[in-house]
């Protein structure tokens, strides 16, 4: 069990990246990446849920008996999701309206549950918090990159509406690469999500190969 923080960080952000290596949590990865801003917002919401639920599961791990652990995990994740849902509805309303349905759906995202089962159930509270947080941030990076690629090719912008959705401080991030109506529409439509994710998995394999690492040929699919 790696309780070494450096490994945890590296695992979460790159080596075992939830999206590109483990292929978990695909639904928000496809649905919420029509722009980099949406991907970033969705990723942060998921990261918050993951950090909080990993921490709680690790704290209570001695109290949670083996037989009822799955219902308890689901309950904890669902409760954290509801907290995020209520808080975003109240204080980040514009972003909430965009993400809508996919905030409650974090509950059935396989990534948080997979990390609870694989890490938090057997670790101390603080390493679990770090694991949840950095797995979540790795997820955020993946979603932002996929969103960025789709947005640049599809609509010719990057981080459009960031000031509206995330706050005025993000205005400087809004960029335009192509003139309006020049984008390849397909990329922001559903098929683009599949294409971009497929090619980005290949890109990560290529980078891993260049770095002399073994490439993972299959995704770990333990949970639905």
């Amino acid at each position: 069990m790696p309780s070494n923080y450096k490994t945890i960080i590296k695992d979460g952000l790159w080596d075992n990246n939830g999206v590109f290596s483990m292929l978990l949590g695909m639904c928000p990865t496809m649905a919420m990446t029509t722009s980099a801003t949406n991907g970033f917002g969705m990723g942060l919401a998921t990261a918050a849920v993951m950090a909080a639920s990993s921490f709680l599961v690790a704290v209570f791990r001695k109290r949670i008996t083996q037989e009822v652990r799955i219902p308890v995990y689901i309950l904890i994740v669902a409760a954290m999701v509801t907290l995020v849902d209520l808080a975003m509805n109240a204080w980040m309303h514009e972003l909430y309206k965009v993400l809508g349905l996919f905030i409650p759906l974090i509950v059935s995202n396989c990534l948080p549950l997979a990390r609870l089962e694989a890490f938090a159930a057997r670790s101390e509270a603080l390493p679990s918090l770090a694991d949840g947080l950095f797995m979540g941030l790795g997820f955020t990076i993946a979603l932002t990159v996929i969103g960025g690629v789709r947005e640049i090719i599809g609509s010719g912008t990057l981080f459009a509406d960031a000031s509206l959705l995330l706050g005025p401080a993000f205005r400087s991030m809004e960029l335009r690469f192509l003139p309006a109506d020049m984008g390849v529409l397909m990329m922001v439509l559903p098929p683009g999500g599949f294409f971009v994710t497929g090619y980005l998995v290949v890109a990560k394999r290529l980078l891993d190969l260049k770095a002399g690492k073994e490439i993972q040929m299959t995704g770990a699919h333990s949970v639905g």
Partner: protein
Amino acid sequence: MKETALMMIGAALVNNVILARFLGLCSFMGVTTRIDTAAGMGMATTFVITVSAMADWAVQHYVLDAYGLGFLRTVTFILVIASAVQFTEMIIRKVSPTLFQMLGIYLPLITTNCAVLGVALLLVEGNMSLIGATLFAFASAAGYSLVMVIFAGLRERLVLAQVPRLFAGPPIAFIVAGLLAMAFMGFSGISTV
């Protein structure tokens, strides 16, 4: 009548759960390596989606709305779905052991299939009647099963194809899924006019 039919076609094909709404992608990528497993998963999920949609509808109308507990929606829905999965397992085991043998291994996976929760949440947001909700859920689930089987068929062929090593496995599956999604975009517009 005509409106109901159009609504069902829309739910099954135009706004397909997997290819347009992006729900249930884990199972879409995970258990579509063979047609028979994909069909089994599709049937089991169809059953659970329909049953839990009815249960969630009742919970929303008679418990959450009635007592102003809207904030517990996510928690109760996921618990209802987990119970519906258990319930389905018990019923199928009693009624048809053969069916249970076919579907048994998929049942536990369905709780974390976001198509189930997603359809339930869509129903609540759509403000439907119980019958409308049940039909919508069934049509969505049928669309889900259809795409699962088609995609499994494609992947069975894909095994025989020579794929560059870097693309082997998930990446080529994603690209094929993208092509399938493009094909399904051809359905948009048919539930209008």
